[in-house]
């Protein structure tokens, strides 16, 4: 029983620790690096005044990595935030609506998008609006909305039609309070855990689109672009690939651990599961 919270805290702390380097790079990096990173070295050079070597254009990888976090994480986080926001509104509204037609009206169009291959959308957006992070973020968000909305609707429906919600209604609680006070709290850990995995997946959707040659400007310092563009040098100048990859991995793992930390007590070890473990 005692170990539970401590372990949770450790997990959360671990998550935060992992998030720190990529987060700092993304937040502080743009202020300490020039907007146009000079190409002043040989391509894929190692050492030579560049602690992490250079990229294909002879730019300093360390500077690039500092510069490119904002767009890599920005696009992913913005896309996921948008997807979760829209998905939550849709899902919660659908779950809270007592009319089936309203539920259908909200969910059906969203479900239509569900089987749309994300690759096609990304490629249309990538090709049509080349190098525009906003467009990529919007497209990725749009792709994620259906799944988020469905997941949250299902979770919320359970909570919104359960006896607790009924009791609250009988107490005269306003629908908003029921939605945010009870349903929202039931949904939050699910949404957080989901968002944690989604941010990671999104970073890679964008990176993979770059790998296939659709999407952002190939000379931009974005981590995903950097990985994709330098991949052929994996064994020549490993840092050009590994530095951004490591940061991305740290970010996604950290985000996931942090999301775990937000899980409700009951679902955590040392909580009620102890009843089973004895």
């Amino acid at each position, binding site marked *: *029983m005692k170990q539970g919270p401590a372990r949770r805290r450790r997990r959360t702390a671990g998550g935060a620790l992992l998030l720190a380097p990529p987060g700092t790079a993304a937040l502080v990096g743009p202020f300490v690096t020039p907007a146009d990173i000079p190409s002043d070295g040989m391509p894929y050079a190692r050492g030579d005044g560049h602690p992490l070597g250079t990229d294909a254009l002879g730019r300093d990888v360390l500077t690039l990595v500092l510069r490119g976090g904002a767009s890599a994480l920005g696009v992913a986080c913005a896309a996921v935030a948008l997807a979760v926001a829209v998905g939550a509104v849709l899902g919660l509204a659908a779950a809270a609506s*007592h009319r*089936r037609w309203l539920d259908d009206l909200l969910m059906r169009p969203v479900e239509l998008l569900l089987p749309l291959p994300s690759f096609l959308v990304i490629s249309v957006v990538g090709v049509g609006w080349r190098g525009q992070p906003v467009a990529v973020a919007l497209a990725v968000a749009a792709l994620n909305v259906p799944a988020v909305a469905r997941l949250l609707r299902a979770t919320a429906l359970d909570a919104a039609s*359960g*006896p*607790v919600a*009924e*009791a*609250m*209604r*009988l*107490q*005269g*609680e306003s629908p908003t309070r029921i939605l945010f006070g*009870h349903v929202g*709290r039931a949904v939050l850990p699910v949404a957080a855990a989901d968002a944690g995995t989604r941010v990671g997946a999104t970073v890679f959707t964008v990176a993979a689109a770059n790998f296939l040659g659709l999407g952002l400007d190939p000379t931009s310092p974005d981590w995903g672009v950097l990985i994709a563009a330098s991949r052929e040098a994996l064994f020549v100048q490993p840092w050009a690939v590994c530095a951004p990859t490591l940061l991305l991995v740290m970010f996604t793992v950290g985000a996931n651990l942090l999301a775990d930390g937000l899980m*409700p007590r*009951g679902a955590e070890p040392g909580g*009620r599961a*102890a*009843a089973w473990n*004895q």
Partner: protein
Amino acid sequence: MEPVIEVRGLTARAGTATLLDGIDLTVAPGEVTALVGPSGSGKTTAALALLGEAAPGVRLTGTVSVAGTQVVSAQGPTGSAPAARGRLVAYMPQHPAHALHPARRIGPVLTELARLHRPDSARSRSAAAAHAAVALRTAGLPDGGTIRRRFPHQFSGGQRQRVALAQVLACGPRVVVLDEPSTGLDTVARMRLAGELTRLVDGGITVLLLSHDLDLVRAVAARTVLLARGRVVATGPTEDVLPAEPPPAPPASASGPLPSPEGDSRGEVTALQAHGLSAWIRPGHRGEVLHDVTVGVREGGCTAIVGPSGSGKTVLARCLAGLHERHRGRISLFGESLPVLRHRTPRQIRGVQYVWQEVRNSFDERRTVVEQVARTAVRLRRLSPEAAERRATEVCERLGLAPGDTRRHAASLSGGELQRAALARALLAEPDVLICDEITTALDAASTELVTAELARLRRESHTAVLWIGHDLELVERLADDLVVLDEGTVVESGGCHSVLSSPGSETTRLLLRSRHLGTRSASPSAPAPPDVRGEEEPCP
């Protein structure tokens, strides 16, 4: 004879609280032993200890052995406890709705349990199926049609209770521990249960019965152990421990019979009225469970609704409270038509309050009980949060709940405690009409007194109308002035409580009445037919 259950110095502690304080208990084989005591006295805790188990955060010491196997030692539960569960001792929990797997049909689970614990079923499917059938029948569920293919949510509250009982029986244990098995059972079913318990004992099974239902205890238990605040205060033959048969007609005690305000002025104004109410379970008007029901309750009056388990009482109550939206018909409060809950004004919400039958699920695990109770006053009576909390504590205390209890989360409260908290939650609204759906099932006599006294006070002082749903006809007779008998979703009889009970006009009522007196051992357990389980057809989405 060797005792089957030997408990020596069993102590249970949670944090600094002592839930059980060195109790001793001996149960002889082949008889029903009852464990009674007020709500919160530690019955459930003691019963779980027989399985070598404790609720989370509760530590056990002492010795407990069941059929020669020691399950609790001075160091807590022993390693041989798991093997004893199911095979030697099987436990039926207090909240069976909570304990049934929502995604598994009841039949396969029963067969599975039989195959696990019964040597003859391990190989043979048909033997296991036969045991399952017997278990169902013994538990009072008809073993016909597609009932074994149903999911738990497709049963009514009382039926779910019996499914849980059937699961226990399917294991074929030496000892069964039943935690409030008669909760939610109508008199007929309760009578049958009593009969089955007797038959179980005759079949060589030892029964430990945890119950508030003293009539049931008297009817079946040879010996009784009385618990109070975690200690055994009395033990011996039932007649000695629970001597006085209650008088057939209740005495004019404080909680006593209808102190009708201002003579017989009740009856003038109808508070809540439902007219031509039909309700169904599934969308598209499918699965109709109420057919053209008309009920009413007068200002300051009390209308009781009785009927066999599964007859639609809860659905009716939920319709009136506005929670069940799939209905047709007119519901009015003081002549003003009532829409479904979502469309009710705060005034109308305040007007009609509902107390749940299965109360545990209606509490939020994230907030303390008192916090939740107080919200009613904040929202519906516009009190400040502090004032509301004071009010809440006050009402709870009147119902016998200590402030320390209500400041915990719902999970750590006993069944009876929660039931009263739920009542307090509704009472804080100071409603015009209070719908009580079997709110005393987990209460001991004293607590029941507190509850009925509080209701009587409200009726007297605030002219609150009460719609009472219950199986306990004694209580109904004491409380209600009008009576509606429901069967299979139809009103089979209604009228003045006294007149209906004294000269029943329908077969259902007669059946219910015939089984009311359990305490007298003359009652024939085998008489009534098992209540039918309606809706045999496989429900489609």
